[in-house]
């Protein structure tokens, strides 16, 4: 066999692929299939390249397993062993299920990152298409430079992607469905589990403690949904429930949050009243007593629901706010250091000052302090966008200057007297007029402006892409200088050939196309010039190297 050195984890015979019988091999790092009677694999996929596996529904006659790759391709295996097809398939599935996630994480991260970059940056995507898909340079080369670059240049943008919060209703999304025989089915997805863990860290703790030593994952979640913890309105404190501890801890967390008090003094209801009436005074002092003894079961379950909603919302909010201040942390902090109250005392006045200032502000009564500006009112937006570009840098004139000069000219015109001794001859005059009318020598600049109207937009687009691609390649090329390592030497030579290839495969066809369309203007001149500069640099470098060698 081709890869004897590899560890083969599972061999399944009688597996058909593309209507051909063969054998499926599951190895440590890849899955492979070889047709019967041949000793090479016609199909081989690394696990890292595999996005997921799909299986045919139970009832179906054909028992199949499909692998979907990251590239979007898929391969279907048909288990055709009559007696044990289902078993074979399940065995393969189970094994894959264990293997895939291991590779997934590694591969995914990089792939996702690349994917994200391409999606976020259309220019890069175009470049990728131009260079990699058309095989000017390899994908690895493309990324080697890219990824390194971005990581160094701007680590915050790639790493500190804003974390996604949790939907407030994630528990509501787990709609129980009756399965027809007096049971309930909850559909859990990885997202929901993640949400539960992030919102209720205590559940995660329990999960880590119990799964898989004591319970299977399924059992764990079954118990979770059966627990009083999930159905907060049920008041039964069964001690054998593994979640009763969670509830207690949540309660503790909530209490510590409450004890900590609030930072904003304007919402602190405890501080609201200046002077509460002493016990025994006032008419509302003895409203329905809140002692637990005479509250009915229903009432206390109601108040449990209310508590739960407050807690749930607070936890969702905390989970969304990132990991820096989970309530559990806060709790431990308060218990360990008692100086906390002093601490809050210390910065309270500042918060209070700001809040008070905000509260008494009447923004509309105040005149805005910044100088009065006139809002820009555009009648035609595109005229603003590609408006006339000043051909030569010149000093701007204020409107007053213009008015003055107009006045001046008017004044001049009134007093104008032709100086007949110094007029031009008629021939010079007519040639001057010709030169100044459109198409004339002096009006070249005016026609140049129309270049974007002369050239069809697809050509313009293509040109843009060419520019981008050429720029990218040239960037690679120039980044090799000064060439001081053998690796660089190799790279620079390769880059030069890349450039040549680019000129051959991309630039030349484009030039031909332009000629075919009879577009007179030399659009690619600048591109060629850039390439020539690079070539000449390369030649100079090469000749120098030759000299040094000899």
């Amino acid at each position, binding site marked *: 066999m081709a890869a004897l050195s590899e560890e083969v984890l599972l061999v399944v015979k009688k597996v058909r692929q593309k209507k051909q019988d063969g054998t499926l091999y599951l190895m440590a790092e890849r899955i492979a299939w070889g047709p019967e009677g041949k000793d090479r694999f016609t199909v081989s996929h690394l696990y890292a390249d595999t996005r997921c596996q799909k299986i045919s529904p139970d009832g179906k006659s054909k028992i199949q397993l499909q692998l979907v790759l990251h590239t979007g391709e898929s391969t279907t295996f048909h288990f055709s062993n009559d007696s044990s097809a289902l078993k074979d398939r399940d065995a393969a599935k189970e094994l894959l299920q264990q293997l895939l996630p291991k590779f997934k994480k590694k591969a995914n991260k990089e792939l996702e990152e690349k994917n994200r970059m391409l999606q976020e940056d259309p220019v890069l995507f175009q470049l990728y298409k131009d260079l990699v898909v058309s095989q000017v340079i390899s994908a690895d080369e493309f990324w080697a430079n890219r990824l390194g670059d971005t990581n160094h240049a701007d680590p915050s943008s790639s790493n500190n992607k804003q974390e996604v919060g949790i*939907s*407030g209703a994630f*528990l*509501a999304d787990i709609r129980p469905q009756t399965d027809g025989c007096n049971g309930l089915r909850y559909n859990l997805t990885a997202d929901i589990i993640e949400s539960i863990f992030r919102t209720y860290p205590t559940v995660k703790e329990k999960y880590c403690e119990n799964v898989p030593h004591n319970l299977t994952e399924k059992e764990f979640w079954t118990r979770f949904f059966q627990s009083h913890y999930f159905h907060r*309105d049920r008041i039964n404190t069964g001690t054998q429930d593994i979640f009763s501890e969670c509830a207690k801890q949540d309660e503790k967390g*909530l209490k510590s*949050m*409450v004890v900590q*008090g609030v*930072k*904003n*003094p*304007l*919402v*602190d*209801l*405890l*501080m*609201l*009243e*200046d*002077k*509460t*009436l*002493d*016990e*025994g*005074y*006032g*008419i*509302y002092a*003895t409203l*329905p*007593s*809140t002692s637990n003894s*005479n509250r009915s079961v*229903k*009432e206390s*379950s*109601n*108040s449990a*629901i*209310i508590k739960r*909603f*407050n807690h749930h*919302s*607070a936890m*969702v*909010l905390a989970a*969304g706010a990132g990991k820096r201040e989970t309530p559990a942390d806060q709790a431990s902090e308060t218990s360990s250091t008692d100086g906390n109250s002093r601490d809050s005392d210390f910065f309270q*006045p500042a918060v*209070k*000052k700001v809040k*008070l200032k905000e*509260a*008494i502000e009447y923004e*509309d*009564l*105040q*005149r805005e302090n910044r100088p009065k500006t006139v809002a820009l009112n555009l009648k035609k937006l595109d005229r603003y966008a590609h408006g006339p570009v000043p051909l030569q840098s010149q000093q701007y004139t204020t409107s007053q200057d213009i008015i003055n000069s107009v006045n001046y000219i008017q004044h001049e015109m009134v007093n104008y007297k032709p100086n007949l001794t110094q007029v031009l001859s008629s021939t010079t005059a007519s040639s001057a007029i010709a030169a100044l009318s459109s198409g004339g020598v002096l009006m070249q600049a005016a026609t140049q402006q129309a270049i974007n109207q002369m050239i069809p937009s697809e050509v313009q687009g293509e040109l843009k892409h060419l520019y981008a691609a050429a720029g990218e390649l040239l960037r690679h090329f120039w980044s090799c200088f000064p060439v001081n390592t053998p690796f660089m030497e190799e790279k620079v030579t390769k880059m030069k050939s890349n450039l040549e290839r680019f000129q051959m495969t991309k630039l030349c066809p484009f030039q031909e196309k332009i000629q075919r369309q009879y577009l007179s203007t030399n659009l690619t001149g600048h591109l060629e010039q850039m390439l020539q500069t690079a070539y000449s640099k390369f030649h100079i470098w090469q000749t120098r190297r030759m000299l040094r060698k000899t």
Partner: protein
Amino acid sequence: MKINIEGLLVYFPYDYIYPEQYSYMLALKRTLDAKGHGVLEMPSGTGKTISLLSLIVAYQKVFPLEVTKLIYCSRTVPEIEKVVEELRKLMEYYSKETGEVNNFLALALSSRKNLCIHPEVSALRFGKEVDGKCHTLTASYIRAQQHSDPDLPVCRFYEDFDAVGRQVPLPPGVYNLDDLKDFGKRKGWCPYYLARYSLMHANIVVYSYHYLLDPKIADLVSKELTKKSVVVFDEAHNIDNVCIDSMSVNISRRTLDRCQTNVETLQNTIQQIKETDATKLKMEYSRLVEGLKEANIARETDVYLSNPVLPDEILKEAVPGSIRTAEHFVGFLKRFLEYLKSRLRVHHVVQESTPQFLKDIFDKVCIDRKPLRFCAERLRSLLRTLEIADIADFSAVTLISNFATLVSTYSQGFTIIIEPFEDRTPTIANPVLYFSCMDPSIAIKPVFQRFQSVIITSGTLSPLDIYPRILDFRPVTMASFTMTLARTCLCPLIVGRGNDQVALSSKFETREDFAVIRNYGSLLQDMSAIVPDGIVAFFTSYMYMENIVASWYEQGILENIQRNKLIFIETPDAAETSMALEKYQEACENGRGAILLSVARGKVSEGIDFVHHFGRAVIMFGVPYVYTQSRILKARLEYLRDQFQIRENDFLTFDAMRHAAQCVGRVIRGKTDYGIMIFADKRYARADKRGKLPRWIQEHISDSSLNLTVDEAVQLSKHFLRQMAQPFRQEDQLGLSLLTLEQLESEEMLKKISQIAHQS
């Protein structure tokens, strides 16, 4: 800008002014000129406070002999601090414009809890503990003992203040609570007593209602304030309840048990002192014979021992002979206590007037009216003589003696109700004696009599005429101002039906109706889908909210709402609710959006503003009637009918509507703010309810929005929100709802402004 208000130059610290502010100042000026009282309603967020302050300060500067002091009373601590900050702004503007150094002294006063800087005492959480601890360190006899025994702990801040603090008055300036604390820390003086001492010569005092209305405190703190003061009660829509609360007492069996131990302690202490230091008791006795009240020097620290009766009601007589000696007094207390115990042993509800009670007590245990009246005064003297440090323990016996004094002083306006059990739990015996004040005018009467001008103002005082009636005074001005708006930034909608045409109402008969609850749920759910950021929903009572939340939970409505916004719910626990509130604001800030379910008459509805994105919509589920089955309320309604000719239903509706208006008014806090106000009850459509809403809300309720279905309300809200999302600039307001000085002075505008005030 500087404005001329009928000949008075008013410095106004802004570049622009709202027309209604001008109008408000005009009405205020006329009230001050007439030296009378006024009732002024102006919507929240139209700069009421700054208008008040600007005008009154200007008045004080121009007529320093006419008005010497401004006493500004507000409800909550944050409100007090806000007022002081606005005042600071005004004063800074004054000194900037005139170039003179400010010579005004303005300060805030709050309880010890907010002012104490003693490291141990201020670390305590509750006001009561702080007060008690402070007392153990500063009481006059403790300090006297400390002279002989230097190891006894005293508060060094108070000692320093007492030693030097009184000689130099507080330098002029504006002192907020934190400024006082800073000043106190720098000088090493107690800020609380410094503030209380400085009240006397301050030009402006900002504190809470209790310092004027609660006789137990007013007697100590506000007694010597000058007659020529202007008193302002801001946020005064609940002032009658504050008055009533401060005069009412209720006594449960637990109180009596604690009182019993108190009395025993008293007795033991007397016994001890008699053995060791009999002269002390003798001296006290002779003092009481002479009838002199203690020299007042030492009294300021003895907060707990104040008289519950209003200052002018206290007799200028000597304590009667029967309770002069300490033992006799303790015996007297014991008898009184036994009598109360026997009264609490009843098995049926008793309701009687104070004369009936007095007659009964005379018949049963031969206690006369006169010694009862001196009970509080006598106990005060005794506690001081016995040098009891931890006065907080004696709150029960203080309560009883206060009750004795009150019940024997007022023959009218009070009722006594003894309930052997709570109505909801008739099997559990929990007897309570309610001594409840029914006439708010009793507590506020001395204020009206004493000060030349009292201004009652709030965002919601409608209908205006009811306040002078229940508080029993004659105002010279009564006016309600509307909010001039360049764009209609509030959208009141009355939702009377569900999409299935079920009438929506929180009335008792349909309270448990599933269809109503479901429709309320779908209203909230639909609104949560279209309203950005925060939504606040108010229920009529906590019980009602609990039930609705539970059944929404069962029906899965809450889960659907959670898809749109996070849900936070008010609980009876203030600390928990504060946390929920803060999280609610956080969720609004970070764009997730949240819903706060809350209760009308609760703390949230009274004290928390939901500005801008913290409240884009408010939903009032039901009409927040007070619990009408309570006997105290019934007695009060009866009293109102007999004394003030106010029909029960009128008062109940008035009370419900002022709370509803308070709730929905929470979301509009200014002209740049906007919000939807949904009244989800078909009863709001009736003229008698609608007519009691403040004018600034009423005039935006169109006839077409009186009986909407949920869907229609959602459509209207969508439209409204889309309009409000358009940019709104200052220029849009100028000339309409915002005026420059020139615009203000034009004839035409002045004419327009005169129409803003709605004189009633």
